[in-house]
């Protein structure tokens, strides 16, 4: 990067917020995606949306690429930049408004997801999307990746809550889409397009989300299953019985062992799988639902069924589940995580495919995930220094993706395509899909400076 160009960047954000030293660039060369690193040319931490617009204008003029970044917990390499400018949103982290009359919250993109949860819950309101990394992930990142989470089954994902966006376009112009209105059919519906655009269409500077009343109560349960397939069948049976739990999470034996080793919450080490189930809503209703869930689990040969006795115990269980991915790294240094997603009736079949592929390619795969919405996280436990094993891991995943597509599923449920899953996307969306996506990209960013090389 030219020294004169760096000077101009410094003028916009201030010298201390423009990082160009080798050491800083090196540690902004990664996010949470295994095996991927790219060295950026500069890292900026703007303090206002005006600064973001000026950065975009300058880079657009100079033909320098820009990659937005929140806390760098992306799982598909989406926040990496090869030689371009990384713009970190951390200083743009203000919660601007909670509108209790319209049930909305408006914020800057760097706001931490769990901070939003805490603030709205103080007022008896609820923002459901809760990705595993919610204690550090940013709202901007959640919107750009359309993050899901543990409560997706009942409450949907980030896209279901985004009502309005303020986006700085590639040329520095501001685009306002949506707002606080519940109904809006004026022109193309651009919000859903921007949500999950992975930083390739614009840079969000303002986000307005929908809030709902906080559920009055919840019951958290844990069921132990000696046989893996029984757990999977129980998941489908719960849904078929017309009970929609807020959370219906699955952990297999490998995952249980790692999580228990870290969290010490009393998970069983001698069963094949556990289901973590949470129902929420009116106390009378959830009591009935909890009873139905217990009944179904017992019918599917669960060996033990436990109900959390208080909020602290419940929180311990769900927090332990949140550590699953990282806890798996206790066994092997490199964890390659995928999020192939299938229609939820296919969970049992998908688990079988994962087991078979692991066996066939001689790799260890721990599986956990949002069983209730068909979004599983098979995670290969490997060592990046063992090239042969890495090759086998990727071969296993290719099979798993193929199977997911064949079942009418998708290659990624919530982590995004980014760099990591780019090569599988054509298989899923076909030539026409790629063509339409390229056309959209062209319309938003004809010079191709926004997070280039991602998705397709």
């Amino acid at each position, binding site marked *: 990067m030219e020294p004169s160009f760096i000077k101009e960047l410094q003028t916009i954000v201030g010298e201390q917020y423009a990082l160009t030293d080798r050491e800083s660039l090196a540690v902004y060369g990664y996010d949470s995606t295994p095996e991927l690193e790219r060295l950026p040319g500069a890292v900026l931490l703007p303090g206002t949306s005006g600064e973001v617009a000026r950065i975009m204008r300058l880079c657009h003029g100079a033909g320098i690429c820009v990659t937005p970044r929140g806390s760098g917990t992306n799982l598909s390499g989406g926040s990496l930049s090869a030689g371009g400018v990384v713009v970190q949103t951390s200083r743009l982290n203000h919660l601007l408004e909670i509108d209790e009359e319209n049930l909305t919250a408006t914020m800057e993109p760097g706001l931490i997801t769990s901070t939003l949860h805490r603030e709205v819950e103080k007022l008896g309101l609820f923002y459901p999307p809760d990705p595993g990394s919610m*204690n550090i992930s940013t709202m901007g990142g959640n919107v750009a990746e359309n993050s899901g989470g543990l409560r997706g089954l009942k409450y949907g994902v980030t896209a279901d809550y985004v009502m309005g966006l303020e986006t700085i376009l590639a040329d520095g112009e501001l685009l306002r889409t949506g707002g606080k209105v519940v109904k809006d059919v004026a022109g193309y519906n651009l919000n859903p397009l921007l949500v999950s655009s992975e930083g390739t269409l614009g840079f969000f500077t303002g986000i307005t989300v929908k809030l709902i009343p906080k559920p009055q109560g919840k019951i958290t349960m844990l069921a132990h299953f000696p046989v893996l397939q029984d757990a999977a069948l129980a998941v489908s049976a719960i849904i078929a019985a017309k009970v929609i739990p807020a959370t219906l999470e699955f952990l297999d034996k490998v995952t249980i062992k790692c999580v228990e080793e870290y969290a010490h919450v009393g998970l069983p080490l001698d069963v094949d799988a556990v289901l973590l189930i949470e129902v929420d809503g009116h106390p009378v209703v959830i009591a009935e639902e909890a009873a139905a869930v217990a009944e179904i689990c017992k019918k599917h040969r669960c060996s033990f069924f436990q109900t959390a006795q208080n909020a602290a115990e419940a929180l311990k269980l769900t927090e332990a589940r949140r550590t699953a991915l990282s806890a798996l*790294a206790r066994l092997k240094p490199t964890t390659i995580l995928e999020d192939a997603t299938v229609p939820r009736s296919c969970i049992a079949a998908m688990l079988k495919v994962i087991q078979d592929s692991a066996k066939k390619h001689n790799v260890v795969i721990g599986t956990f995930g949002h069983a209730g919405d068909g979004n599983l996280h098979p995670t290969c436990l490997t060592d990046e220094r063992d090239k042969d094993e890495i090759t086998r891991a990727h071969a296993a995943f290719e099979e798993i993706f193929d199977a997911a597509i064949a079942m009418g599923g998708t290659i990624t449920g919530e982590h995004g395509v980014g760099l990591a899953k780019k090569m599988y996307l054509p298989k899923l969306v076909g030539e026409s899909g790629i063509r339409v996506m390229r056309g959209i990209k062209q319309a938003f960013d004809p010079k191709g400076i926004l997070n280039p090389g991602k998705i397709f």
Partner: protein
Amino acid sequence: MDYVKLINCMRCGMCLPTCPTYKETFLETASPRGRVALIRKLQEGELDQSERLLEYLSLCLDCQACATACPSGVNAGELVAEFTCERKSQSGLSFMEDLILRKLVPHPDHLETSMVPMRIYQRTGLQKLVRNLGVLKMFPKPLGRMEGLLPPLPAKPLRQEILEITPAVGRERGTVGFFLGCVMSLIFSDASRATIKLLSSLGYRVITPRNQVCCGAPNMLGGDLDGMKEAARTNIDIFAGYELDFIVTDCGGCGAELKKYGHHLQGSDAAEAFSTKVRDISQILALHADDLMKLLKPLPIKVTYHDPCHIAHCQGIRQEPRDLLKLIPGVEYKELESADACCGSAGTYNISKPEMSDRILQRKLDTVRASGAELLVTSNPGCLLQLKKGLADHLPDVKIMHLTEILAQSMDS
């Protein structure tokens, strides 16, 4: 350094929200994940050992909140400390480091003598004069900070006054060795007196070997692993001379270090035996909560507790101090928000990195203010120094005490 420990970090970012310096800066270089990456890239040859890299690493408080948060079992704080030790073992200690870590710290006599001028300075009214005249501004900044942090010193270090054997009150239930930390002895002698009193009141015979030396934590902090091991061997030998049920300390920093003797002197059975006997005072008192409760009299006061990093993160002790405070009749216990976040003291960090330390302290004081507590309790001398100063400057109505002080006070009231 073991390369596997570095690549075990899978960069999930779970550590970020718990790291005090990341919370202040939002910089990846100031985060646990970033520090591990810097050391890794240095080892892989991608980065050099530049001044800047060392500066980035030196911002780590080694509070180990990241280790508590890490599901993968990576301890970034410890890795930075290990890195510093390896670097110092190659480069050698500087003149000042050698003077302090080898000639002063390991010898209690020297250390105590070194404090004499300070005591005179405080007692003769010279301190008042110096402060009023603003003379301190003429000295190097770190000196000024040190001066400001020091509370009035006791007339004599506790080590010189304490009985080597304090008998049990009533029926003897066992014998404990008391490890008297340097700072506890030199500055917070009232707290350690209270500790001994509580132990003896609960039926323990308390042996405080006069010849024990510093635990070695300052050596670790300065990257002097050999000096630390030397201290460990001396203390292990001294305490091995007694029949002890436990080795007790009321200093969080010492406790964390003593518990690691077995780890540092791998293969030494004596070191392992020593470490397994070490307990923080709260662990012993909690064992006898029922008996202790009978001794306590009412103290109507709103109390909150700050978890020292060396107790919560390094030793995993969180519940005992809270349970003990709640034993005191009349105490209204208020939980502190982010109670286990570092206060910014971190050994000598508040002197070497004053600006960052102050920012971290300010956050802590905000939570103390919000708790509405009249008394802040903690159990580590570093935290006591830092918070005492912070409260005096910003929240003068809030008192601060060591855990054993408030318990002893309740016993006496």
